[in-house]
């Protein structure tokens, strides 16, 4: 009776950029907002199969998933669709809060030699490699919206954004990309 449901990503089909920057929507992902006290981090790390980072502004990556330090008791865990992160967290057996936010966020991949400049169109953080190295991540602002920024390579970033703000973020990134070409 019912057709199998298809996930409609808010930025599906969006791409853009300039000669210096490539912008594209990231593929669908599973996301977890994970909260726990320090004493329970080890158990959760074990359950998720990657060491939750405890140093500010850092991320960890293993077994096809990433964990981004967002705060002293908060991580954004990103895995492939169907990874089953909620269940894994539950399996840890320790007190924590795991909330599925797979659909709350969407992501934009920003790459190319002008990637940092494009993001600096609206982001007040210092994105030089010395201060924001590969693997660094932070919640921050981008123009008039909040984003989570992860540097995935010297010239590449992942911008996590709440879905209803993604049009705005993509639009502002496009402006930044255009200017980063000069």
């Amino acid at each position, binding site marked *: 009776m019912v057709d199998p449901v298809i996930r409609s990503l808010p930025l599906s089909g969006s791409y853009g950029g300039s000669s210096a920057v490539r912008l594209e929507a990231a593929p669908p992902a599973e996301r977890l907002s994970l909260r726990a006290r320090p004493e329970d981090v080890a158990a959760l790390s074990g359950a998720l199969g990657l060491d939750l980072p405890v140093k*500010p*502004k850092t991320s960890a990556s293993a077994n096809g998933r990433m964990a981004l330090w*967002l*705060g*002293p008791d*908060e991580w954004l865990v990103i895995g492939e669709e169907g990874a089953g992160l909620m269940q894994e967290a539950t399996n840890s057996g320790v007190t924590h809060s795991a909330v599925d936010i797979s659909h709350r966020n969407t992501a934009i991949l920003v790459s190319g030699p002008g990637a940092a400049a494009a993001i600096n169109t609206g982001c*007040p*953080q210092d994105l030089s490699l010395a201060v924001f190295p590969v693997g660094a991540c*932070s*919640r*921050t*602002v981008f123009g008039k919206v*909040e984003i989570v920024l992860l540097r995935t390579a010297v010239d590449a970033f992942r911008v996590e954004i709440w879905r209803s703000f993604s049009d705005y973020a993509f639009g502002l990134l496009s402006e930044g990309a255009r200017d980063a070409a000069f």
Partner: protein
Amino acid sequence: MLLIHCPYCEEDRSELEFRWAGEAHIARPENIAAISDEEFAEYFFLRNNEKGLTYERWRHIHGCGRFFNAARDTVSDRFLMTYKAGLPKQALPETGASEKTVETYEATEGDAR
């Protein structure tokens, strides 16, 4: 635009990531239901609004999300220190409090040195 040191992120960040959250070290009365109208007004409304050294709260709302405390000079807007929520009022480093603040414009207008 201020530059604020987040004690949780251990980094200076732009004010754009923060939200000011009022005077610090005002504890909610444990027996709040029993306090007098005067005590309630004092707790909820009255503030020091210091000119000079002030202790205040900020939240790194677009960062780690944490509330924390700061000691700032409201004349120069210079931060003397920031520290984590829950810690008692911190003594200031020696150079901080004693440092002469630069006065407001109105003071320099009438009488340059």
